[in-house]
């Protein structure tokens, strides 16, 4: 008798079942001779094939020739010469078929034969199922090991390329947190250090997970690092990175990325965004998004990226983050979400670090058994409340010929804590100092300065702004002057920052009116002289790319006396 043992292997749940037939010609029942011929015949049997339903509904031996079903599998069986099939059913599932060809005696199968075969099927079905489960388990173990190995590689790539240390900037505090999901998403962040003291901050997310995402992350990081050192414009850097990345990135993959450049002296933060989650800035408890538009990297070439800037005042902070935080779900599948994140930042009053605070809130939101769905990356940038540290050592060459001005830059150390009242930028065009006057006057209205003091402050602001526009920015309209107004309990300060390079050469010589009237000295050169006599304190700080004049006026001072003393 020929015995066909058919093994059904489920390739994918709900998909076509691959049926492999094994032909064992073992002679008639009771024969003692061993297998004489083994032949494997593959047979596809779809789960919705009517034959499957028939076998499940009619246990026991089935005479194939008597069946009339519109079944591809039935046709296949008939084509192989199968006469009788005994379905192997285990726990309601068809796990195999015992297929018999014609008896070698050419007689029909007897009732005893069928009974014997049915008994055999009853024993064989669970055994076959166990064998299948063992084999499936082995295959799953191998697949799991392969995935684990891949994840180890992905983690290694990412962790090797992420910064080992966080930047240490005087007057600033920077923190980062990175927790990959088990599947290792494509999050990354980076810090770039420029010779002029500026700091580049990158945060990004590659679509996909595992090794492919890690490789794209590594490529993106390398391109970004290369282009960032060739251009000081965040928008241009993203544009070039996109054009270089696009030809090599696998189909359907892309990278969201935000790139910001911080000038730690002025607090100016320039940024451009390639489709990444918008950072949040916290300014005096008011949280706002730092918006800039741009397509993700790698999607299409020739993209341009909007460039924005903001000046971070003392006490300000910025949160950069990835979608692993905002897209985390709790047990009822609610999403953490942007509004929730924004609200948390607004109401934060405790002394915890922002990262610890947000992680605690995330843990509370997701519950204890949360399986992290995606990488969570957080980078925080905060400016210290006091800028005293920020000015140390940054003004060594800002000496003054006559020593009259205070260039120590240490003034604000002596005052109470400062808070920012307003800040804005002014294009460097002649006459625009009037904008500064107007805005400052409006801003300090709440401080109730006397008219005399207000007029003095306005003129000092005008002169400092003119200096910045003329000497620092050479009246280039697209090079703005940054104006910040701060207040403490006892003073008001106005900081005016240009984009000038080199030493602070605001004044060529001390104005000497007699010499000017004799035309032995230029009639100009009054700006700094006036400022010194109009405010209570003036400081100048600089680095390689900026000068900042700080004007301080004491709120309880009547002013004027210093004029008499110095004039």
């Amino acid at each position: 008798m020929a015995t066909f043992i058919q093994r059904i292997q489920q390739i994918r749940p709900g998909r076509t079942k691959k049926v492999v037939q094994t032909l064992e010609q073992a002679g008639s029942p009771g024969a003692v001779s061993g297998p004489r011929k083994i032949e494997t015949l593959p047979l596809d049997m779809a789960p919705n094939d009517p034959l499957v339903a028939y076998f499940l509904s009619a246990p026991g031996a089935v005479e194939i020739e008597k069946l009339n079903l519109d079944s591809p599998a039935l046709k296949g069986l008939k084509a192989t010469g199968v006469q009788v099939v005994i379905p192997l059913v285990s726990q309601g599932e068809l796990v195999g078929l015992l297929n018999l060809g014609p008896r070698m005696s050419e007689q029909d199968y007897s009732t005893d034969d069928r009974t014997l075969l049915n008994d055999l099927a009853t024993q064989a079905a669970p055994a076959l199922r166990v064998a299948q489960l063992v084999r499936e388990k082995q295959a799953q173990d191998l697949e799991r090991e392969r995935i684990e190995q891949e994840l180890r590689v992905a983690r290694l790539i990412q962790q090797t390329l992420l910064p080992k240390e966080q930047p240490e900037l005087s007057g600033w505090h920077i923190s980062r947190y990175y927790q990959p999901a088990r599947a290792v998403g494509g999050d990354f962040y980076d810090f770039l250090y420029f010779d002029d003291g500026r700091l580049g901050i990158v945060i990004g997310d590659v679509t996909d997970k595992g090794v492919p995402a890690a490789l794209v992350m590594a490529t993106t990081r390398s391109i970004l690092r290369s282009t960032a050192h060739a251009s000081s414009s965040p928008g241009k850097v993203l544009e070039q990175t996109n054009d270089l990345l696009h030809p090599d990135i696998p189909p359907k993959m892309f990278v969201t990325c935000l790139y910001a450049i911080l000038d730690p002296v002025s607090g100016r933060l320039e940024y451009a965004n390639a489709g990444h989650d918008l950072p949040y800035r916290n300014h005096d408890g008011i949280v706002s998004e730092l918006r800039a538009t741009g397509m993700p990297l790698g999607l299409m070439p020739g993209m341009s990226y909007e460039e924005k800037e903001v000046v971070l005042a003392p006490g300000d902070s910025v949160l950069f983050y990835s979608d692993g935080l905002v897209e985390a779900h709790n047990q009822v599948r609610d999403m953490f979400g942007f509004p929730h994140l924004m609200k948390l930042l607004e109401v934060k009053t405790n002394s915890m670090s922002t990262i610890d605070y947000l992680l605690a809130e995330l843990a509370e939101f997701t519950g204890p058994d949360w399986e992290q769905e995606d990488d969570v990356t957080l980078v925080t940038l905060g400016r210290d409340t006091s800028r005293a540290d920020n000015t140390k050592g940054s003004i060594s060459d800002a000496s003054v010929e006559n020593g009259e001005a205070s260039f120590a830059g240490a003034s604000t150390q002596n005052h109470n804590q400062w808070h920012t009242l307003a800040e804005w930028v002014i294009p460097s065009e002649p006459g625009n100092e009037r904008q500064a006057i107007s805005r400052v006057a409006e801003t300090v209205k709440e401080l109730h300065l006397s008219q005399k003091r207000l007029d003095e402050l306005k003129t000092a602001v005008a002169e400092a702004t003119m200096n910045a526009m003329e000497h620092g920015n050479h009246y280039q309209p697209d090079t703005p002057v940054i104006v910040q107004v701060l207040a403490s309990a006892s003073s008001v300060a106005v900081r005016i920052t240009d984009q000038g390079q080199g030493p602070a050469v605001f004044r060529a010589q001390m104005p000497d009116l007699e010499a000017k009237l004799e035309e032995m000295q230029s009639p100009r050169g009054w700006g700094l002289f006036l400022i010194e006599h109009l405010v209570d304190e003036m400081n100048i700080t600089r680095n390689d790319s900026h000068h900042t004049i700080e004007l301080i006026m004491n709120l309880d001072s009547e002013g004027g006396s210093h004029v008499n003393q110095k004039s």
Partner: protein
Amino acid sequence: MSTRSLEAQVRHQPRVAIIDLHGEINSFAEDVLNTAYAEAESRESDVILLNFSDVDYINSTGIALIVSLLARARKTKRRLLACGLSQHYVEIFQITRLVDFMSVYPDETSALNENPTAIIDKRPAS
């Protein structure tokens, strides 16, 4: 805030020229100021009075222009006077010591009254 360009009118009286200034004295004011001054000195006035009563902004460049006019006046032995300055710009003239070289008066009348070479303008001071 929009800026006001400078306008100037010159009134001549015997030996006195009065330059009425309107607007802002900044870098844009140079031509107007020089033209007005040239007009003022064209009739051999001994005294030239700058009337700042309608001037609301003077910056350091404007101060430099005034210094230039003062130097020009000293060269030609003319007296340059100022009137109508706000309290703040009187302070600026003090800081820069311009007051040491040009007398500053509250208004046109007082300026002309206190200068023996000047004849009082019959027009009411603005």
